[in-house]
């Protein structure tokens, strides 16, 4: 560490423990430990921590993580996107319309969907930046606009709100497995053979492990978390994200291209929503007009549990990932523990409140406010 030549008698020493505690992820770390301890105590014999159970809550957590990373970076840059949920429904429907109804090759379908959705994200950002309106309002408008199209388009061309047949359309495509495939099958086969994970005992898949690979959804989640974390903490652009959300005017005065940063974060959020949607339609084989409902709030809650400030300028991608993990573990854990699933919402409200209170306290310590 840097050795200060003179010391100031008014600066109190901060203990390393306290210093380690003062970080945005604290709430997420505490919450994660609490949640795991709780379910290990009350649901350990329910199969929640057997291989299939782990896969189950990992998948749910990974879904939350994918959209939480986008929402996190956008929130730190000082904006919200309430259209994430509608974007998920819309993107899934685009895949179905291009790939099934129009019969385009799946790779072209996926690339076109990404292009359209990211363009809509850019439009969101552009309107927010140019009009100076709160992103809350602008993206609320898009929540309705996109949801409306998601219902209107399949009803008009197919007279239904669910379009299936995506799995067949994706058969043999080179890009589709990036979203719907699995990796690590040999490893899981080996783990099954040596008895670490269970294997099917009879039926056509006898001898195969019950979990035969890591779904790409989880790979995407981990990759996005790592990318987001490095982008935020280790690059120039990350500093611009913090600055844009901390005080846009001060950032502009220092030469930070605030508008560009914000628009790019809207595009990135749309990208994450599209990854979510593409993985989902590949898994389900169909696109539904009601997909992604309320996902924008779940993403925002995960981000806030992870220590980000709703007002921008402060937060952590790792924290958001932990928030998403808590989310997934609790949602599925209550199911394994045999608790009435409606109580999940009660729990969610309580943990959100606790996280916000803890985070406000941490922020006060950091900025020295009283």
């Amino acid at each position, binding site marked *: 560490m840097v050795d200060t030549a003179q010391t100031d008698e008014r600066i109190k020493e901060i203990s390393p423990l306290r210093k380690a505690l003062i970080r945005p992820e604290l709430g997420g770390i505490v919450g994660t430990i609490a949640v795991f301890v709780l379910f290990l105590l009350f649901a350990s014999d329910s199969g929640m921590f057997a291989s299939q159970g782990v896969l189950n809550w990992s998948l749910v957590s990974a879904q939350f993580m994918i959209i939480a990373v986008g929402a996190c970076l956008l929130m730190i840059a000082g904006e919200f996107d309430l259209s994430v949920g509608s974007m998920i429904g819309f993107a899934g429907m685009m895949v179905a319309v291009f790939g099934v109804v129009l019969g385009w090759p799946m790779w072209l379908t996926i690339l076109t969907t990404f292009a359209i959705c990211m363009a809509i994200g850019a439009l969101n950002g552009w309107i927010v930046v140019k009009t100076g309106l709160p992103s809350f309002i602008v993206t609320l408008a898009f929540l309705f606009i996109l949801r409306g199209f998601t219902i209107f388009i399949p009803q008009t061309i197919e007279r239904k709100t669910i379009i299936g047949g995506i799995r067949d359309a994706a058969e043999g495509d080179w890009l589709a497995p990036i979203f719907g495939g699995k990796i690590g099958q040999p490893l899981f086969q080996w783990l099954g053979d040596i008895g670490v994970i269970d294997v099917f005992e009879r039926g056509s898949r006898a001898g195969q492990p019950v979990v035969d690979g890591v779904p790409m959804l989880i790979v995407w989640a981990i990759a996005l978390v790592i990318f987001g974390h490095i982008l935020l903490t*280790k*690059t*120039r652009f990350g500093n611009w994200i913090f600055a844009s959300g901390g005080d846009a005017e*001060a950032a502009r*005065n220092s030469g*930070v291209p605030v508008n560009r940063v914000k628009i790019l974060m809207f595009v990135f959020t749309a990208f994450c929503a599209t990854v979510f949607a593409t993985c989902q339609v590949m898994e389900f084989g169909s696109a539904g007009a009601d997909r992604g409902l309320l996902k924008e709030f779940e993403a925002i809650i995960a981000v806030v549990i992870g220590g980000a400030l709703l007002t921008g300028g402060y937060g952590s991608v790792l924290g958001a990932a932990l928030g998403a993990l808590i989310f997934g573990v609790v949602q599925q854990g209550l199911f394994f523990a045999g608790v009435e699933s409606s109580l999940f919402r009660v729990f969610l409200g309580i943990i959100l409140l606790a996280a916000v209170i803890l985070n406000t306290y941490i922020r006060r310590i950091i900025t020295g406010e009283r």
Partner: protein
Amino acid sequence: MNTRSTHEPIIRMQNIEKHFGSVIALAGVSIEVYPGECHCLLGDNGAGKSTFIKTMSGVHKPTNGEILFGGRPMNFESPRDAMDAGIATVHQHLAMIPLMSVSRNFFMGNEPVKKVLGFNLFDHDYANKITMEEMRKMGINLRGPDQAVGTLSGGERQTVAIARAVHFGAKVLILDEPTSALGVRQTANVLATIDKVRKQDIAVVFITHNVRHAMAVGDRFTVLNRGQTLGTAQRGQITPEELQDMMAGGQEMVALEGSLGGTV
């Protein structure tokens, strides 16, 4: 060092006019600023100080008039142009981001990068080292470079902003009312910082409406009133009372001062 009079001015603004629609904010303002001097720009609220410094720093384009920078006519299209030319502005409130660390603030917009595995990453070690060094030079002892700016006092924040501008090669440093929200002790610190900067041959333009702060560090004084210059005075040629009167437009102030018993 004190060959100021023979120097070329680093920046010369001639007959600057700025109209906003039907409002004439500046009606022909001229000043010259020399390297190594602290040029105080005084004026009451609404005198045109802000418009004038925004013109100098590239935010506004003058309606009429000429800006010569280092002897050559300059046309700044944006604040970025002015910044690149070496004109740095430190704003009263909008200088620092409280939630970010001192070192992140210090390098905001000018982050140093190093290559790691082919990627350009923010060089935190370098940024932290430079920040601590520069802060120590200005007489501020940080707990660490990761200390949030929010924990610093108002005067310290101004000092960080000034140190940042100097580190990034400012030739002209515009300080927009740096002392107006500060206590006595903090003001003294900022004024001392201004003195340190001036000694590095940087031209300081110090905007204030506090005559005492101006007299404490100023080499020359220009008073703005209702969009016009009332002339530039050398240190020693003018008394604080005269400056105060010029800022207020003379007469009204005298009447007021009488009724307040000379306390203003």
